[in-house]
């Protein structure tokens, strides 16, 4: 299965309004809530106040947005190359593991900021290698990147649990709450009244800019598009599609691994079993909803981050499970796929 069909559907001949997507999604969600006997308005208000109600809450949104944006940027590369990088979830996890590993090294040799930088780089490298592994399984082993990636996700998840309950367990006890907290000098600090580390935010924004530049304004981006759309023709241009797809997998893994590193150093300050928070999978939805267009990605990611943050308080305030956020996200993506599909059909 290739992603290129969906990437190619930006044909001018189709005139179904894109506004139909939110309208359709909203209708779906409202209908569902009404059937369950809930007021869409109350829920909407709760979601809004929980995400953009004040700066503290919005800064929390941004702390979700940063890793989500990193993962989404990574996926832009793999989708351009015609690949479904489901393995992004595992790449986040491996990034978190490699980052933690560096931070757990016996200290004293380097100043903490240098160790922190190295740790984030190690996170990127770990994720990148995990991505290359899925890519090589595809290129050399003929394993579809979807299945290879999915398999590697389980391996990554198993690895993190083994580490937390085995070699890296907290002194005396092993629990689902994760490893020992890192010493504060290894934290990416947030200013008082902030829930997001400025470094993480800056990293995400810079990555977004660099990704857009790389995708749309370089020879590399052009070759990526050629190889992703038509590998056979690309070969005639002297491009090796397999190599290009490996580079895309590495870049996606690198950014996902960086996101994993941020989860450890800026959010949880330790390694926990659910360290990825599912942001890899969520990023797949973000990029699909953005119809693979780089400029739409930060906005969609922000919307999703609001949903994730806003739904945290739902169980307490309205006795509704916070999985409602997932329901809304799913409704959005399904509506988007439907509308894009219809537009493509019409053109």
């Amino acid at each position, binding site marked *: 299965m290739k992603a290129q069909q969906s990437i190619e559907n930006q044909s001018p001949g189709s005139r179904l309004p894109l506004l139909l997507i939110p309208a359709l999604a909203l209708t779906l969600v409202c209908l569902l809530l009404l059937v369950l006997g809930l007021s869409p308005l109350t829920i909407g208000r709760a979601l809004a106040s929980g995400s953009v109600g004040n700066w503290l809450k919005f800064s929390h949104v941004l702390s979700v947005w940063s890793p989500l944006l990193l993962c989404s940027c990574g996926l832009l590369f793999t989708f351009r190359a015609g690949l479904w990088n489901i393995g992004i979830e595992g790449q986040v996890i491996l990034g978190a593991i490699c980052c933690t590993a560096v931070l757990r090294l016996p200290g004293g040799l380097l100043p903490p900021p240098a160790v922190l930088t190295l740790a984030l780089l190690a996170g990127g490298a770990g994720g990148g290698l995990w991505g290359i592994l899925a890519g090589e399984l595809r290129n050399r082993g003929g394993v579809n990147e979807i299945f290879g990636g999915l398999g590697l996700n389980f391996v990554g998840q198993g690895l993190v649990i083994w580490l937390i309950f085995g070699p890296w367990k907290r002194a005396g006890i092993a629990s689902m709450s994760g490893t020992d907290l890192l010493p504060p000098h290894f934290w990416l600090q947030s200013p008082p009244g902030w829930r997001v580390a400025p470094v993480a935010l800056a990293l995400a924004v810079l990555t977004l800019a660099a990704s857009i530049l790389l995708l749309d304004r370089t020879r590399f981006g*052009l070759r990526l598009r050629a190889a992703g759309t038509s590998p056979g023709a690309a070969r005639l241009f*002297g491009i*090796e599609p397999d190599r290009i797809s490996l580079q895309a997998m590495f870049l996606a893994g690198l950014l996902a691994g960086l996101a994993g590193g941020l989860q450890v150093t800026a959010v949880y300050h330790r390694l926990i079993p659910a360290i990825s928070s599912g942001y890899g999978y969520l990023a797949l939805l973000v990029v699909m909803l953005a119809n693979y267009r780089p400029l739409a990605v930060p906005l969609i990611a922000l919307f999703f981050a609001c949903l994730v943050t806003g739904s945290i308080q739902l169980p307490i305030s309205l006795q509704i499970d916070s999985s409602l956020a997932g329901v809304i996200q799913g409704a959005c993506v399904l509506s988007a796929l439907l509308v894009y599909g219809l537009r493509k059909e019409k053109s």
Partner: protein
Amino acid sequence: METLPGNDMIGLEEIHKRFGRVEALAGVSMRIRAGSVHGIVGENGAGKSTLMKILTGFISRTSGTIRFAGREVDLRTPRDADRLGIGMLYQEPLDFPRLSVLDNFMVAAAGHDPGRLRQQLLELSDRFGFSLDPDSAVERLTVGERQQLELLRLIHRRCRVLILDEPTTGISQEQQEILFAALRALRDRGRAIILVSHKLAEVRSLCDRVTVLRQGRVVADQEQPLDEDRLLQAMFGSLPGGQRTVASRETGRPILAMDRVFSGAGRSGLHDVSVSVAENEVVGLAGLDGSGQAVFLRIAGGLLQPDSGSVRLPDRGRADRPAKGRDCRQTVFLPADRLGEGLVPGLSIREHLLLAGDAPFFLAPTTGRTQAEKTIATCNIIGSPSTPADGLSGGNQQRLLLSLIPDRARLILLENPTRGLDVRSASWMWQFLHRRMGDDGAIIFASPDLEEIMARATRIMVFFNGRILLDAPTDRTDLQTVSRAITGRTPEDARLPAA
């Protein structure tokens, strides 16, 4: 409604078929008798496939009358043809590879009684000397065995007319003999059998009557005993003299050398091909579609690895791995499927030129625009730098592909290069190619058009079933020899008494 042997099973009168401006069939009339094997022969594009598609209801005729067993019928859908009992054995068997032989047999059968159908399958299989295991998965069968299964399915559905499209390609000699015996048995039971083929040997051994199509018309109709020379002449026509537009020049050093190359790719594969092409040669590859030309070009272009044998190219020792950028490559390949294999849909003319040339790492929206405008002007492409490749017409796609050939190209490989081009564009293309080829280059092109090959090439290679049957300078061979080779007769055969 039974049709006695010797009576007309199918009567066609003045069948026309137009595709836009192209007239694929220009008034075909013929009669197919019950209890006979009727051969339909002709070169590529003669209209054989179109005629068969009309008989099987896949496309409708533009005008003309079709009679079936004396009654006028209207074949609009494959179902209409099926109801009348017209069945076709396609080049690629239309079966369900994952299902078993018995399941495949049952899919189209009336009722669902596995025990009874198994019995019928075994009886039929036995009667025709086939050896089909009902429980084996179809994907594990050879092409010949899949044909046998397909044939039994059609017989079981009481097909009265059986159409076979090049049935012997890719099957063994033994399977061919079994198939022919089965076809003869069916003929003797009053079925009408239509054999579409370009292999004169099988036409001679099997057909009672042969009709030759050329450019959508019936140009000859013969009964046994066949006059092969006249058949060949009817199939390929004769060339008007003095058409050669290319002069043989001194050939230089070898550019491409293949030694004992074998490949299993494509329908025919490539068998034991050893050739050497030198500077200044223009080689035309002839043969029916799928006889090995496509595989040959892709192996020469380094896109396909041979199963065995060696390939040496000018810009690298072996065709093992593609060289770095297209521009530093001295070998280029222009595929027949221009948009599918040669160009990238969605990418603009400017972006294609950037991919082909030495583009800088950072690209502004204006990078390469001037260059693209220049190329568009010199190559007469109708489009702008931002026109996507899929927005260009077929002829303009070919011009774009040609413009991507680097100056340094020494070996230019082309597949059906003039397809869809009008005469002026074609002549422009050849001038362009000769300029690009220079004094130390070579061109190898495959073309279904023999006249084009005789006019444009200095050397012709004729492919048949994955082998090169004839390899000669175009000024030292004639159409008769070439057409014999296309139909599977080597020059040596001609000297032997007819078998």
